[in-house]
């Protein structure tokens, strides 16, 4: 098959790409302990003063709280509406069914800025029409639009893989609709729902592209980072926060790995910053259809 030369080239290319993926994260971690506020090489190590500075930042706790609240809100809405939509599309055939499948994928297929401008237009309109103000509520609504998609994709993929004969058998054996849902459908969907919720929470927690247009004066953690990155004096504090966030991101990876039962794969789901945060999910759970 591969000649020795081709095999060597592939190995070198693989190593290069791995270095390209990880060296930036290592450099970021190093500079979090840099004494100076510039990024001159080599960094002047070691200090932990930026971490304590971050703890005393006046805006950071509020931003963190808003991010968590927005993620919980958007995930809850997405779990409810996303799985309902999946049930409807899976179980019934109705007028416009294919359109719904298509429309649900739109928020991740269109460039992020388009979704952002679209929501900004309607919030602007709602502001004029009924005085809707920007805040946590508009953030949650914005996040829910793309969080629904990931839950929908996860649930519908699982529904398609679960044989309908299970449900029929349950009904034949005398279970009513609720019992069938409680003992057959829901257990089959459980991990798909957890995976969808993990993804949705992660997407919402990291989202900046849309949030920037829907937040008004409300600060979320990504907005705090975005505002402070551009202030030279604040950069080291941002760096410390960035390292903490990077380490925290290991938690969902761990859970996703557990869910996938050791065989992990992933599928990108597209769209601006939503895409940027798209994580590991079992292959068959993600992606349209």
């Amino acid at each position, binding site marked *: *098959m591969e000649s020795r030369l*081709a*095999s060597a*080239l*592939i*190995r*070198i*290319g693989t190593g*290069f*790409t*791995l270095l390209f*993926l990880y060296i*930036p*994260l290592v450099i*970021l971690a190093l*500079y979090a302990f840099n004494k100076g506020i510039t*990024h*001159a*090489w080599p960094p002047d190590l070691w200090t932990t003063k930026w971490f304590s500075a971050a703890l005393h930042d006046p805006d950071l706790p509020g931003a963190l709280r808003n991010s968590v609240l927005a993620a919980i809100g958007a995930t809850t*809405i997405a779990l409810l509406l996303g799985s309902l939509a999946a049930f409807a599309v899976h179980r019934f055939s109705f007028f416009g069914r294919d359109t719904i499948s298509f*429309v*649900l994928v*739109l928020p991740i*297929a*269109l*460039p*992020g*800025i*388009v979704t952002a*401008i*679209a929501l*900004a*237009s*309607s919030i*602007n309109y709602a502001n004029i029409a009924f005085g809707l103000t920007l805040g946590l509520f508009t953030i949650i609504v914005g996040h829910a*639009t793309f969080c629904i998609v990931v839950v929908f994709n996860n649930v519908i993929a699982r529904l398609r893989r679960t044989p309908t004969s299970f449900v029929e058998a349950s009904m034949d054996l005398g279970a009513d609709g609720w019992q069938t849902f409680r003992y057959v459908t829901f257990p089959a969907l459980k991990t798909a729902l957890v995976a969808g919720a993990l993804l949705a929470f992660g997407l919402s927690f*990291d989202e900046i*592209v849309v949030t*920037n247009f829907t937040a008004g004066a409300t600060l979320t953690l990504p907005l705090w*980072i*975005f505002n402070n*990155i551009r202030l030279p004096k604040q950069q080291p504090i941002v*760096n410390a926060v*960035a390292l903490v*966030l*990077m380490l925290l*991101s290991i938690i969902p*990876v761990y859970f996703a790995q557990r869910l996938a039962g050791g065989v*992990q794969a*992933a*599928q*990108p789901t*597209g*769209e601006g910053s939503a*895409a*940027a*945060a*798209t*994580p*590991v999910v079992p292959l068959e759970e993600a992606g349209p259809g």
Partner: protein
Amino acid sequence: MLVVYLASLALMLVTAFWRLNELSSQIERVWGLQNFQTLWNSSATRLITVRTVGMAAAVTVTDLILAFPIAYYAARIATPRGRNLLLLAVVMPLWSNYLVRVFAWRVITSGDGPLQALLKLIGINYSISASNWAVWLTFCYLWLPFAILPVYAALERVPGSLMEASSDLGAHNGLTFRRVVVPLIFPGLVAASIFTFSLTLGDYITPVLVGKGFFIGNTIYNLVGLASNLPLAAAYAFVPIVIMAIYLTLARKLGALEAI
């Protein structure tokens, strides 16, 4: 929620045909194509559009080149355990915050920073701080996993027997790659390019944080944020939509949409 989203999209399309009263800064609901005329007649927007599409193309090509070896190694050389670890290594960075990864590149490309030190080491005294080079590197980094995964999925499906047959019939590696592997994984390559292309078109954060030039994304962002000209911004948002529509239509003709 679906209704909210669709209504928003529709409203954006409609807003593009309204106009801003320059004196009162209020949106006037007067129909007209003046926003599109403004955009079309401005040499700046034409330049920005060409620059953005060029950047998206450059990022796509770079990412496909970077993606192939690691995808090939994972799909055809690695042991099952090694493959799982490699795929995990590819998606891990996606879990860490998008802004954190952009910030890492702001640090790397900053003046006198790590990259400049590395370039000096090989005899190039040049800073790419706040340049389109920095934007290009950052985009390549951000979207690389989205390029690797479809290429990997496509390579995994190529039957090994076809490659053996090709080499049994006397084709050298280069020929097998060109005539057997690339045609078979072509839908996967197109799928990967859809992600890298669309994501680059729609991003406005990276040009703001690591570059200084204007791209479609940060131009629209400024039209809304600084100029408060929502109608003009909405009109400009048509550009990435139309480009992606053309791109997706071509991809469908090439039979690549099933590979996503």
